[in-house]
């Protein structure tokens, strides 16, 4: 079965005064029907640009190229504008990070929900209003009918994000792309929103491409995980496999420095990966992580192979996983012993 979303060798380049910023450097990924793929990585590694490139919402100055970019067989890179606009908001919807600024302040919640449906379906206004009320209830908003007449500024951040989710659901999409949908919210609201997304997915069979830098979120919702570093996908695989046997040194470092409920010992010091992310302007020779990698050696300056470690589990590293398995074991023993 072919995947719902297929991305192969995606590049995003943005001209800047300092030179061309090569923000996304050959990302390949696929999302199957009904599954959740989480993309993680440090700030600035190109997660948002990847999602915007898929949706065709890149800033005007950015240039996109890809060997393949397809949604359910429809070519998103070379297809007609009309065909792509027909998918957007209809079969693939997007939820953004900041619910405070993502809704138009000048129009009511109801108007913004309804227009999505009217843009794609041949339904009357009344039917669209009914659906809006139903979905607002479904995403856990009380007195849904009364909310339709309210403006975004009258709603809290958590409520607005629920409205954004309802809006994404208006046309019954096959795929939802969510770019850090909980980052701007309180911790308790974060958990509620995540649970909501997970429940909706189970109920409606929607595929989700979730972008986050929170591995705790990944542990709770993901089927598969993709780890990005400096515009590249350095490791991807089933979430169980990657969490059990992280292969790329960057993934190991991430897992080591972010607390995961039930995995990281409580009260263990919050680490950060030493070193800085290389500039994305111009080309990067060899492995982009080499400068911060404790296992770096001469081969890291050459071409980096993509190793297959198991079904769908791949890592972009010169070292075989067992090479540093032993080293890692001693290191983690040391950490726990501290």
């Amino acid at each position, binding site marked *: 079965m072919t995947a719902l979303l297929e991305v192969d060798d995606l590049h995003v380049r943005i001209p800047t005064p300092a030179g061309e910023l090569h923000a996304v450097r050959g990302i390949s990924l696929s999302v199957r029907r009904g599954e959740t793929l989480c993309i993680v990585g440090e700030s600035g590694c190109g997660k948002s640009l990847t999602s915007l490139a898929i*949706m065709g*919402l890149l800033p005007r100055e950015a240039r996109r190229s890809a060997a393949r970019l397809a949604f359910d067989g429809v070519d998103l890179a070379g297809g007609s504008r009309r065909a792509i*606009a*027909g*998918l*957007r*908001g*209809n079969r693939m*919807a*997007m939820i*953004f990070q*900041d619910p405070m*600024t*993502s*809704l*138009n*302040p*000048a*129009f*009511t919640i109801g108007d913004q929900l309804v*227009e*999505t449906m009217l*843009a*794609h379906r041949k339904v009357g206004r009344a039917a669209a209003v009914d659906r809006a009320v139903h979905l607002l209830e479904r995403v856990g908003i009380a007195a849904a009918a009364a909310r339709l007449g309210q*403006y975004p*500024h*009258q709603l809290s951040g958590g409520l607005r994000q629920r409205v*954004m989710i309802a*809006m994404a659901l208006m046309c019954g999409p096959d795929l939802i792309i969510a770019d850090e949908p909980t980052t701007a919210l309180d911790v308790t609201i974060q958990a509620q929103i995540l649970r909501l997304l997970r429940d909706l997915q189970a109920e409606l069979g929607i595929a989700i491409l979730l972008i986050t830098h929170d591995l705790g979120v990944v542990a709770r919702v993901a089927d598969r995980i993709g780890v990005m570093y400096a515009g590249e996908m350095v490791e991807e695989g089933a979430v169980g496999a990657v969490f059990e046997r992280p292969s790329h040194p960057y993934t190991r470092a991430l897992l080591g420095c972010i607390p995961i409920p039930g995995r990281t010992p409580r009260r263990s010091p919050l680490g950060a990966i030493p070193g800085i992310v290389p500039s994305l302007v111009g080309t990067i020779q060899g492995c982009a992580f080499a400068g911060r990698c404790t296992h770096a050696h001469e081969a890291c300056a050459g071409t980096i192979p993509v190793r297959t470690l198991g079904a769908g589990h791949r890592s972009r590293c010169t070292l075989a996983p067992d090479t540093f398995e032993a080293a890692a074991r001693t290191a983690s023993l040391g950490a726990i012993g501290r």
Partner: protein
Amino acid sequence: MLSYALRRLIIGVLVMFVVSGITFTLTNAAIDPARAIAGEGATSDDVEAIRKSYGFDRPLAARYVAWLGQALQGDLGSSYRQRRPVVDVIMERLPVTLKLGGLALAFALVLSIPLAIAAALRPNSWIDRIALLFALFGQAMPTFWFALLGIVVFSVNLRWLPASGSGTTAHFILPAIALGYYAAPTLMRLMRAGMIDVLASDYIRTARAKGLSEARVVLKHALRNAVLPVVSVAAVQFGFMLGGSVVIETIFAMQGVGYLAWESISLSDLPVTQAIVLMISLIYIVLTLSADLLNAWLDPRIRIG
């Protein structure tokens, strides 16, 4: 919304009182009403006699209160020259000025808003440069010079449009363009800057993500937010066109309030001058008030605090 409107209304009325007081004081200081009525060749005895009989010898404050009392009943006195109620004299001229101002504003909006949107959609493109050039010309060129240029080209050489008078709508075309072109650059710049800001906002990205047509994204989601600051400025511009059309009305010899103001000042017709200043400030106040209310109506964050 209602208490907001009420608050604005009360402020407007207060401003009106202050303006009327200042106007009364200044005009009476600039023109001696007794001498103005007596005319050029009158002796000083005549002037004093008139001063007594009209009550101009009373203190200024007392005269102001008397005048205000009558003004509040809609009686602004009589014109010294025309020997008719001031209200009649002005009302006769008002339609020409309103028509001129309205056409000028319409011309300014029709020219600047679409141009601004096109420019904002493609900053630094050729259309943006044309818009900039147009704004530069409009701001650099004095209104009277632009008006004279129009007369030379379209009235004298091409003979397409009349050069003076206000009898037919054709008489309004050149003056309205001259007046409107003066206001357009400000509106254009404001609209362009607002539109560029709004187009970069998150909710526009959301609108695009919903698969709405580009026309709907721009004309519904962006325009509604970008037009807010333009509304207030357009209202003030309209006030300016009504009050400040003195030059244009004089050049084109249009029988409007602006021309009347010029006549009254040069003939020392104090009641008319006073009334015109008062009327123009009233128009300004009403316009800014309605602009504020329109803004509140357009922006729910003000309407529903």
